[in-house]
Each structure stands twice: as C-alpha cells, then as structure tokens.
C-alpha cells in the first residue's frame, strides 16, 4: 500500500525564516553562554590581563620597559632566528609536500608520519635531543669543540630547535591542497614540453601560493613564540641567547613585572596580527586553501 505522502510531512511545517534547530530556546541560550564564557575565560581575559599588566603604571612605564638593551637584543635575536628558520621551512615544506602529494613511492606514509613528529613530541624533549647530540658531552661534542664550533647555548642551537618545532607547519598546509589538486595540470605542462623546474615555478607553485603564505604565517608565529625547546638550548645568556619569550620569563623573575608584560604584549600583538592576516587569507582566498580551511 503506498504511503500517504502527508504522513511524511512534519506536523508543524517550519515557517520561512525560522531556525531549523528544534532545541528549546533555553537550551540554545545555555549552550551559547557556556561557549562564550569559555572563550572569555580562556582567551579574552588572559589577553586583556597581559595588556592591563603592561600598562599598569601608565604608558610611560610601558615604553620605558623597552629602554633595555637586553630586551632589544632579544627582539633582534627572535627576528633573526625566525628569518633563518622560516625560509628553510618553506623550502623543506615545499619539497616534502611536493614529494608526498605528486609522487608515489615506498615509505611515503612513514615520511608523512615523520613530518608530523614535532607535533607529538614535547618541545622540551626535542631541545634535550639537540643537547645530547651537540652538547659538550654529546655524541658530536668533542668533534665540534675541536673545530671550535658552538651549537648549543648559541644561535645555531636556537635555530635548530626552532626549525624542529615549526617543521610541520608549511608541509601540513600544502600536502592536502596539492593532493586535492592532483597532477593533471603538471601532466599537461609536461606534455606541452615544459621541464621540471618550469612546471614547478609556473604551475605547481602558483597553485599553492596562498596556502604557502598561510603556512608561513603560522610557522612564523610559532617560531617567534616558541619557549620550551629554545629554553633548553639557550643557556639564558642575557643580551646574547635570550629570545623574546625567554626574556619575558627573565624579566618576570627579576621582579620586573611591568616590563615582562610589556614585552609579552609584543608577542600577544604578533599573535593578533597573525590572526587577522590568517582570517583575511581564509576569507579572501578560501578556494585556494586546502579544503579543511574553507568555511
């Protein structure tokens, strides 16, 4: 017997413009309140606290906090470390994602797992590994000392640790997008006579450029904000091997609370800028980011 079509209709058809959800308004309000309270408590309040503490003694005290050569050398060091680590990660990230997304080879899944390793390893452990390898008592310690190269407790150690913790950011953005795009455009380019480099520069790279910038952005934010790994390999020499996050800790422990939060506000500012640019990229170039980033 054919079903009566009327029986499949809802008893009370949803009026045009009404919400498609069926939960009572009280439940919805409660859920929204919980979510907002959570955000306020864990994201907005700490952010406000950073700036409130930084400006506790007024604007003059805030700017006076930057009148410290050690703080400036921390800022330059952080920029320098990021300036080395981020471009290297761009190269590694591009190479890795190109290999993973456009080619088939044995051990591919192992490579993908390895790229993700820094996400799952504690940064402190990665710092310790470098001390074990390159420290004076480490595996290469004697050799490095005999040739007079200092890696740990110097800038190279900071760069290594930063590269390690930021390694996945670029590759993770590019791999899904490249996989989604497939290899047909590259095949077309090759069949029209373009060489490998030409194909890469004219086809592959332009296709992923915004995703690449997106990855660079996240990579840079992490590179400048990293604490754990660089703390282990830094040696905390003032004005020499302290990056901005380490300088914040030092100022805080020097009872210099206003300066500590003033410098922390730099990092918070960097975070906010990153967020804005990231949102702008997501909004403007959503179709050219990996599908996970679209909304």
């Amino acid at each position, binding site marked *: 017997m054919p079903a009566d079509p009327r029986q499949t209709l809802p008893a009370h058809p949803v009026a045009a413009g009404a919400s498609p959800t069926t939960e009572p308004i009280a439940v919805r309000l409660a859920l929204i309140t919980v979510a907002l309270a959570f955000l306020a408590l864990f994201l907005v309040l700490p952010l406000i606290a950073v700036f409130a503490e930084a400006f506790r003694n007024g604007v003059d005290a805030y700017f006076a906090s930057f009148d410290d050569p050690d703080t400036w050398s921390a800022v330059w*060091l952080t920029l320098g470390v990021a300036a080395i680590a981020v471009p290297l990660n761009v190269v590694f990230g591009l190479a890795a994602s190109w290999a993973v997304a456009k080619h088939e080879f044995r051990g591919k899944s192992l490579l993908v797992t390895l790229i993700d390793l820094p996400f799952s390893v504690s940064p402190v452990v990665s710092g310790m590994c470098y001390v074990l390898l390159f420290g004076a008592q480490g595996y290469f310690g004697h050799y490095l000392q005999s040739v007079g190269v200092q890696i*740990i*407790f110097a800038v190279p150690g900071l760069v290594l640790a930063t590269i390690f913790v930021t390694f996945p950011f670029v590759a993770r953005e590019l791999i899904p997008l490249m996989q989604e795009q497939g290899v047909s455009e590259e095949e077309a380019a090759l069949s029209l006579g373009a060489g490998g480099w030409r194909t890469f520069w004219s086809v592959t790279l332009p296709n992923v450029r915004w995703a690449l*910038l997106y990855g660079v952005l996240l990579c840079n934010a992490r590179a400048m904000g990293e604490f754990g790994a660089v703390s282990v390999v830094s040696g905390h020499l*003032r004005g*020499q091997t302290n990056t901005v996050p380490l300088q914040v800790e030092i100022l805080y422990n020097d*009872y210099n*609370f206003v300066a500590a939060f003033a410098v922390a506000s730099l990092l918070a500012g960097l975070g906010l800028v990153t967020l804005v640019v990231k949102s702008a990229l997501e909004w403007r170039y959503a179709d050219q980011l990996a599908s996970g980033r679209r909304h």
Partner: protein
Amino acid sequence: MHRRTFTRALTALALVVPLSAAAPTAFAQTTLTNVSYDPTRELYKEFNAAFAKSWKAETGEDIRVQVSHGGSGKQARSVIDGLNADVVTLALAADIDAIAKATGKLPADWQKRLPHNSSPYTSTIVFLVRKGNPKGIKDWGDLVKADVQVITPNPKTSGGARWNYLAAWAYGREANGGDDAKAKAFVAELFKHVPVLDTGARGSTTTFAQRGLGDVLLAWENEAYLSLKEFGEDKFDIVFPSISILAEPPVAIVDANVDKSGTRKAAEAYLKLLYAKEGQTIAAKNFYRPVSPDLAEKADVDRFQKLKLVTIDKDFGGWGKAQSEHFGDGGTFDQIYKPN
C-alpha cells in the same frame, strides 16, 4: 592579478628577512661570561657595572659582563654541556665540583684557590611568612603543623633548596638528640607539606610572593630581605629559626674556558674585586653577608642577625659526602620525596 599580489608579498618578505638577520649584535668587545644561580640577579647587575668601571680605570678597555641565572644545579649542567662560562658563581660547592669532575675544565681542588672556601659572601636560610605571621610559625617544628604549606625549590636543580634541606635536617637532628633516622623522618614530614617544587630559588619566591601560594617560604636570607624590598615590608615578615646553616656560595674561574677565549686576566680581576671593598659593599647592600664585614658599610652589616649556624663541612662531612648521600640518585631526598 593574484599572482602579482603574491609576488609583492614575497618581495616584502624578502626585504624584511635579510634586514632583520643583519641587525643582530655583531660588534666585538671583550666579554666575560658569569654563569650564576638564581637569586644573584640584582647583586651581579650592580657588581658588573662596578667591575666594568674598575676594569676601564685599570686597563682603559671596555668590558661587558654577560650573565645567566637559573637553579644552581641546572646552571652547572649547562656549563657541563658546553655553556661557555668564564667564571661560575654558584650556590654551593657541589655544583662546581660536578663541573670539575665531568669536564676537567678546572682542577678538583678549585675551592682552595680563593680565601674563605672561595666564597666572597655567605648567607643562611630563613623563613618568609605572610604579614603578621597568621600561622604562628616560629621555628622548623611549626612547618609540619597540619595546615601549613611550605614553599621550597627542587633540591635536584636548586642550590638554595639543598641548603634548605640540610638546614631542616640539622634541626631534626638537634631536636632528636643527634638521631639521623629521626632527622630524616622530620624532613620527610616537612616535604609532605610542600605543594610545588620550582627549579630555582627565584621561581619559588615568585610562587610564594607573586602567586600567593603557601604559608611559608624557605628562603635564602638575601632573597627574603629582597622580597621585603620589592613587594613592600607590609606584605611579609622574616622569621629567624632557632638553628640554620651557613650557606657558602662559591665562585671559580673555569680555566679551560678562559684560556680558550683569552679572558683569564679579566676573570681573575673580576673575582678579586668581589673580595675587595666594592664587592663586599655591594654584597652587603644586596643582603649577602660579606666575608670581610669591615670592608662593607656598617649600616648594611648591622642588619644581619646573629644565628646559630651549622656548617656543611663540620656537620655534614663536606659537599662531596652530602651531595651523594642526600641528593644523588637514590639519596635521602629520593627516598623521602613522593609528589602528592
């Protein structure tokens, strides 16, 4: 069009990157590296300026002293792992012993090279309590009362914590007629009242003073006085226990490092000045007990109370013995401490 925007973004990045990379400090100047422990931040900030001035007057050269501060044991570990210290000014002899033993960069008898066991200043362990002493803490015995929380750093990484630990042990021993087993039981009971172990003395001070945790901070005397100065005398009181320990933070030149960087002369002058009028005055001003009180300001010296103090050499058989017995792997600290 998109591509042009992208190229511009890349160009901007390419311009910024070398600029920021070129900027870091590249100028050459004699620098001396002092790797020190946690609470000496203010002391060496002042002393380094005095030394730079004296060195300039003496030699006409500019010198920059760079410092690193952290828990004494952690700092020793960094020097062992290759941190290029010209001088080490740590919280206790065992940490410099560890450097000598692990690296051979300074001789085993380094502590005999300078007067007073190589300690230009001494200190002791006192209690810092909240204003008015609401929990009525007068002596070590009061620390194990049911509702008292004690803040002290981790003896594995902090020098001050090891002095704290031995001072508590000395009390336990004295209160029980010299019985070490009962002293150990007392220290074990005491550590049940410790909610958190920071890695260095300064970390513990901020935990107690800034974050408001605990009822009493076991602190270096200098750190306790500094807290009154930094946070206000209306916030805390210092309690002097019936017995404490003479803490001798030693200083030493790391021979292999100064010879490599050609800084031996400056390093020697640096340590010498610590024992001279400038060093002794600055130490006393920063609440360290100068070993030559007559060189320091009388008003600063008069602030120090006379306390009954045990010593590491007489009462604990020296750091060589105390370190392995109490703080080595499987030592008494490992036996009594279970995080709760």
